[in-house]
């Protein structure tokens, strides 16, 4: 009696689950990989398609906010279907690791081409691209000789001349977290207060909006990620290109710690079922082809040194960047946000 029931119950559950899950056609692929990505679809799908083309591994993708995806992994627990997590900053990877949601990337995947500060010391995650956050200035109103460091942006000469986005934004949070690590909490808080005092307007909009505000004359200096400027310089729209070309990049702190950078990165999920495919994906993402694609398409810097930059990136010049281990940036994120709250950085 029982075995029969057992069988029926199994079939019932199996049918139920297959009815519940919206199944997309899977014909023709022997292997699959399931990805949760905080990188939005437009910036990852094309390269994943190339991966499928090359390896015959089908990619299933969900994109969303990193912390929400991490929450989903958490509540799905051991049955979570996800194999790899892709994020656009180191902090979230460190968070996923500390929650026990990731595992060591096997030695079969070579991470030696990636700078050690961009890889988790326990090999729970690795960077895939670098994103730099320099100063951008109006070519016609600012003499680059007056610029030097991020700290110098608190000088009185910049009063009412600086545009930067809200402290809710992760790029500002990790920039501040990195400063806490390197300058200490007190000095960083002084810096944040000084910066806020020099704001041209209350923070609003994204990085591109800050660049536009500089071009339009609302402020003279913006702090923004380079790939936004790169994207604007390569825009199909002439007006946008003109805006981007009236603004130039200044690399701050080149004589000391270097400019702030963050990464986009990848980790293997603790309960990954397609481990070999996950390994193949990471190796592919670190290959010259994928690294070059990111540099060309999204103006991000490759993490593998040998890979050539796009012309737009070359035109912005080379730079020295911070060398603190990125995971500390993740750990200090909450402190950074509280500090910015206290400094009145909206």
């Amino acid at each position, binding site marked *: 009696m029982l075995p029969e029931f057992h069988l029926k119950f199994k079939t019932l559950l199996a049918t139920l689950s297959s009815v519940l899950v919206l199944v997309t056609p899977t014909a023709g692929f022997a292997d699959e990989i*399931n990805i949760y990505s905080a990188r*939005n679809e*437009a910036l990852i799908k094309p390269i994943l398609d190339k991966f499928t083309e090359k390896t015959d591994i089908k990619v299933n993708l969900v994109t969303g906010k990193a912390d*929400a995806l991490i929450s989903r992994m958490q509540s799905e627990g051991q049955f*979570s279907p996800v194999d790899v997590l892709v994020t656009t900053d180191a902090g979230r990877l460190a968070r996923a690791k500390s929650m026990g949601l990731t595992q060591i990337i096997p030695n079969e995947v070579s991470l030696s081409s990636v700078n050690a500060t961009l890889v988790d010391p326990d090999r729970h995650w690795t960077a895939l691209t670098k994103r730099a956050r320099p100063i951008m200035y109006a070519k016609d109103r600012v003499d680059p000789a007056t610029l030097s460091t991020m700290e110098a942006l608190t000088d009185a000469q910049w009063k009412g001349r600086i545009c930067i986005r809200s402290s809710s934004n992760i790029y500002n949070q990790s920039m501040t977290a990195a400063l806490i690590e390197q300058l200490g909490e007190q000095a960083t808080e002084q810096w944040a207060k000084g910066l806020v005092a020099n704001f041209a307007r209350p923070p609003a909009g994204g990085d591109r909006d800050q660049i536009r505000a500089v071009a*339009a004359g609302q402020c003279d200096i913006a702090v923004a990620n380079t790939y936004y400027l790169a994207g604007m310089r390569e825009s199909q729209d002439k007006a946008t290109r003109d805006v981007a070309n009236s603004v130039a990049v200044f690399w701050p702190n080149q004589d000391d710690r270097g400019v702030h950078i963050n990464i986009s990165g990848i980790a293997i999920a603790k309960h990954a079922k397609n481990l070999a495919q996950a390994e193949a994906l990471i190796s592919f993402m670190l290959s010259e082809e994928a690294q070059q694609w990111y540099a060309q398409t999204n103006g991000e810097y490759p993490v593998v040194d040998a890979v050539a930059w796009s012309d737009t990136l070359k035109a912005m010049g080379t730079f020295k960047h911070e060398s603190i281990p990125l995971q500390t940036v993740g750990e200090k*994120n909450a402190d950074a*946000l509280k500090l910015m709250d206290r400094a009145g950085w909206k």
Partner: protein
Amino acid sequence: MSRILFWLLLGLILLPLGVVLSSIANPDFSLLQHLYQTVLLDYVSNSVLLAVGVGVGVAIIGASLAWALTQYSFYGSRLLGWLAVLPLAMPAYIIAYTYTGLLDYSGPVQQFLRATFDWQYGDYWFPNVRSLGGAIVMMTLVLFPYVYLLARNAFTAQSHSLREASASMGVTRWHYFSRIAWPLAWPAIVAGMALAMMEALADYGTVAYFGVSTFTSGVFRTWFGMGSRQTALQLAAMLTLIVFVVIWLEQRSRHKVRHATKGNAREPVRLTGLKGMGMALACSLPVFLGFILPVIQLSSWAVSYLPDWSWQDYAPLVSQSVMLAGITALATVLLALFLSYTKRWYTASIPQWAINLASMGYALPGIVIAVGVLVPLGFFDIKLNAFTNAWFGYQPGLILSGTMVVLVFAYMVRFVAVALQHTQTGLQTITPNMDDAARSLGVGSVKATWRVHLPIMKPSLIAALLLVFVDVLKELPATLVLRPFNVNTLAVKAYELAMDERLQQAALPALSIVLCGILPVLLLIRQLRKHEDKYAKRA
């Protein structure tokens, strides 16, 4: 039986709210203290101001439009009658992006002003779009149809004889509006206001882009920035307090006037000449600002990026969005109907607060609902596996998490308020003596419901279906987190591109949301018109 089902369904709908409220159990005092010392006051005041501002704005625009379009006929008034619903199809964050592009310092309008008058930065005053005031205006422009729809039904239902009786006693048109028509329509107007206010409280996209700190942006900031989901949920729990107040006020207004008068609608007064033109201009302004202008701007952007899209990638976006919205709309309205009817049948044993509680989901940010859904369903899945493993040696894996079921469930939690608002107002227009009359004629209660209620409820039902449909089309945060692999919607696409500051590329999916929303709106209008014509014919 149906009472038991009522409480069961209610419990299910309230599960996510329970997760949110239970977060209060273990507070992180140091973090809360930090918030209290720095930003909490901002969150409270901005959220309250936003909700009140949007509430007042939609009431004024929505009710005036409804009044003008039901009482007068003028050039274009029939067309405006349905155009006025269209702003609903426009996601608030999209209109926010559009207007910022137009009106910001670096936008074309101010550039033109500077070029024409040779001004520099600081030489002139121009309202800052990216501000609390701007957020209020943006949301008002897309949310006023909530009031318009409900108020329009209410004004239409007001009887002709009422106006005539008033006129015979020397009551002027203005007095009639302010003393009689307005108070009678008030419950409907407040119902629309409550919906708009709840939606404003739950909004994230607009306030985040404008840099306005509200409870909802605070929830995101605390969760994502400080890594404290618990404290984020606690903020959401505080937000529900504000919502309680909104719902309480709404209920109070309902108590005052229990039953709207029913009767024959009257012929609208024909306005011609300058008066007619003035009216046409005034009435088209909100529609122009809330719909036509943004659509023109979006279209011009969409055209320049059209070659980037392939139909092969685009078709599934449209079909998945429409399918999800359609299924959810049906399920949600059925649920709302069941809840409202059970409440009507068992008035004594089912308190009103039970229905009100079910509406709470509307004011919770989508992402909070997502967490509220993920946690209990994930728990259920894991327990189920443990159970089957122990008894049958078999683990089916996740059978709910990561499926469409979860997504539709989350939508229902979030949007059942919209459907309830309409089923409830619809049911209120059916007076108990209508049921008695039917019963005295020997028609059983099921049959009475079918034959007497359905025709009267029809416009409310269709409005409910449509609104939930459009709301799901626009919904974003919950969709992002809960969707199964490879499921994409238009809103996800539009949002991802817009958040990446590729507004021009986002224009096409945004426009498509509007287009998918328009079709059912047209349907609604046809139904409403039939309904109104029927009243008119009887007059």
